[in-house]
């Protein structure tokens, strides 16, 4: 379900566009769900290091947001996603994925339980038609809040101190908690960076004032506005996957067999076979022990980013490809996520190579870089989990 945007319409302004425009030296705008979003505002390096060492502010309003309400909202969501949503307490957020009837991932996102019968689902892909299908037969309601609810991601070690300075008390928020801090302000301790950070949700017209409030509070805490490129490095370091990059949302694919199961994406822990039926359960049960490929976190030899490189077993047999690859400035390692076919992803892990093409001043060179599979995130600082968080 990709969106066709009429090129004549151009890109829309997000809720804090004039703030971003003022900060944008690099003027690198890209199309995020029809909105003009910054890839960078200034330089990637400055933004990335602000994100890891200070605090960074990113407008995430183009995310899709759906509000699900009604007495059967829990049952409806439990049929939709692979996790047991009954275990999500009010005031908690959960990372969830949902699959089609063949068990192939449609999208991933965060599910907020705002009240017993009120939920918020945030994701990357447009999902309204699917949710309307999913709600049929249940006493529940779907509202598309995508263009009504704005989101600002405040991420980085000083983000807690910054919120405190802005007069927002989030000291008791544990990771994946959410709370209504003010009548029109929802804050969740979530993010796409694997670090200490918060996401702040407010009505679209209120977003600019919220931006200013944070901006004014953060002048001595190193706050910087950032674009997506810096977040992309951070999310690969955290081992997070992106729709359309590390997996193809199955509803957006046209070719057969481009979908991936949660097992193939390393998300087995999100699939709860004991909770009763959910979409794709019967298909997933059949393939639970036979993934066609696995998404591996790999350490790449050398320092050349391995993005899009083909993966070989024993330097000869092509067995997969790199979906995301960057040099990690924090881990000081060359890291990547790689789709590798089975059985090589299981039995041949010690003999994998990425075939990296590098263009060096007009000359193409090839490097067969050895891949070393890792378990766990490349970067997982303890500060991300500490409650109350440190101020740094």
């Amino acid at each position, binding site marked *: 379900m990709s969106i066709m945007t009429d090129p004549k319409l151009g890109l829309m302004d997000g809720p804090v566009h004039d703030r971003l425009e003022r900060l944008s030296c690099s003027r690198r705008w890209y199309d995020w769900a029809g909105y003009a979003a910054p890839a960078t505002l200034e330089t990637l390096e400055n933004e990335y290091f602000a994100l890891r060492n200070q605090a960074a502010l990113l407008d995430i309003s183009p995310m899709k947001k759906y509000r699900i309400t009604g007495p059967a909202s829990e*049952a*409806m969501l*439990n*049929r*939709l996603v692979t996790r047991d949503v009954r275990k999500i307490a009010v005031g908690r957020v959960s990372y969830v994925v949902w699959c*089609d*009837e063949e068990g192939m991932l449609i999208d991933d996102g965060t599910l907020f339980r705002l009240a017993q019968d009120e939920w918020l689902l945030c994701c990357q892909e447009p999902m309204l038609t*699917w949710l309307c*299908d*999913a709600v*049929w*037969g*249940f006493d529940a309601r779907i509202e598309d809040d995508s263009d009504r609810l704005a989101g600002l991601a405040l991420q980085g070690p000083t983000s807690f101190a910054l919120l405190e300075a802005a007069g927002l008390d989030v000291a008791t928020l544990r990771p994946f908690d959410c709370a209504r801090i003010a009548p029109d302000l929802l804050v969740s301790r979530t993010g796409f960076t694997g670090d200490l950070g918060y996401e702040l949700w407010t009505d679209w017209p209120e977003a600019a004032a919220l931006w200013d409030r944070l901006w004014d509070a953060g002048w001595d805490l190193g706050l910087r506005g950032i674009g997506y490129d810096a977040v992309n490095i951070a999310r690969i370091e955290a081992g997070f996957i992106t729709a359309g990059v590390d997996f193809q949302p199955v509803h957006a694919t046209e070719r057969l067999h481009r979908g991936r199961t949660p097992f193939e994406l390393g998300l087995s822990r999100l699939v709860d076979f004991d909770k*009763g*039926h959910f*979409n*794709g*359960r*019967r298909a997933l049960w059949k393939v639970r022990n036979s993934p066609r490929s696995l998404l591996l976190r790999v350490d790449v030899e050398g320092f050349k980013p391995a993005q899009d490189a083909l993966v070989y077993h024993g330097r000869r047999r092509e067995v997969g490809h790199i979906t995301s690859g960057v040099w990690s400035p924090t881990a000081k390692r060359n890291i990547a996520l790689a789709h590798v076919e089975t059985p090589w992803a299981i039995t041949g892990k010690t003999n994998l190579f990425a075939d990296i093409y590098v263009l060096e001043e007009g000359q193409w060179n090839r490097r067969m870089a050895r891949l070393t599979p890792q378990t766990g995130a490349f970067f997982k600082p303890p500060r991300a989990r500490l409650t109350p968080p440190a101020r740094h």
Partner: protein
Amino acid sequence: MSNFDAIVIGGGINGLVAATVLARRGKSVCLFEQNDTLGGMAGLSDGPGTPALAHLVYNISPKVALEIGSDIDAWPFSAPALPTVALAESGRHVIVRDGRATFADGTPHPDADAFQALNERIARYGDILRAIAEAPPPGMPKHAGYGAALRAVRRLGRMGMGLRAMGKAETRRFMQVLLSNVYDFALDDLDEGPLAGLLAADAVRGAAAGPRSPGTVFNLIYRMGHGGHVRVPEGGVGAVLTHFATAARDAGCRMQTARAVARILTTDDCVTGVEIADGEIAHAPLVLASPGAGTTLSLTGTDHFDIETARRVRKIRARGTAAKINFELSRPFAPENALGPPGPARYVVAPSAAYVERAFNPSKYGAMSENPVIEAVPQSVSGGRDWLSCIVQYAPSDLAQGWTDAARARLLRHTTDTLTAVVPGFSEQVTGSQITTPDQIEARTGAPGGHWHQAEMSLDQVLSVRPANMIGHYAFGPKGLFLCGASTHPGGDIMGLSGCNAALCALGDPA
């Protein structure tokens, strides 16, 4: 209540056949029917000799007769084929007896040879398609086993051989007409008139389609699968259903009438039984449901099905277009010049193929036909009055103003007027009437849209995509739940094959 090996929901023909097949293979079976009587749509009666709905039998499959332990050549299946009278306003009615058409006054019909050749061709095509039409649909899931796969391949092979045996020219013609519309098919070889109208009417009976709708030749071939002979067995259609009910009882099925199933129960994605409306629970690891897929889904709970399945079930097209009218007459129905010696016959009001198409047009926009297509079968009740049982088309289930008493009266008037136009004086013979419109059919039988096939028999809803894609092999959602009604392959008319195939699949032995 108690434990069974299998529970069947619905005591229509498919439910009865499914229960019998299971019981004859040693299963303990309990059948629940919401109405007071068994027989479903075909068995309902509004009094002696007046079938509430179905009034003719065709397409009873020898396979079904065998499976329920009956003889296809004996009662009630062996009744003589009825002649058909195609009524014309001019009074030049056409009688078709054993595929041979003559005018009612005995003079030869100019299109008699062409009509016979056409019928023979349809029968030949029917022969080729029958193997596929009667078995479970092609592409059974892997767990059905190698035996089933082998048999499926053999059936396809036989169809291929059948096509080869027809010769190149005839095969080409078969492929040409298979997906085509009956209007062009009939008028290629026949002059416009009652014979073309008869073919057109037979192709679209019960369907939300007109003769110019694509795929209607396929429907005609399907209906003619067993020669196209229509019969009224001694005792009427109701007696056939009584025979099926007796067969089920003889096989050892427990029959529970006037007991509606309120819920289908599951545990861990497996069926465990049903809950009756009064709260009683019956346990079984197999549940075969003959109501439509939508009803079965609701009985089980939407959350036990995938989102795609719920969507497909929701989109199944089941728009009933046929109403049933029984006329009470002051004297036996006998159109002037219609038949030489008096005797049972089927009368069809469809004076031309274009007439059928024009009758269809209003139904597309939620209106009833002012000049409907009518299939009428006189019912003689010993010692009682004479009745004329009529299937009247088109009376769409989604009538724009809804089926009010006024709308029913209007349909009754249109039907009487139409019959009077071809049978002068008919309206004066009418002393009473009963009318059942699609909304009432739905209420009485649970058939979605009051559609007697429970799902339109169109090319996108036949074979392995009947009633919808991915649920075309009887199994439906949780383990142990099967659809066995007319909404599954091969579908409606009084055949019982859906029930038979579903039972065999449930037993893990698709034939």
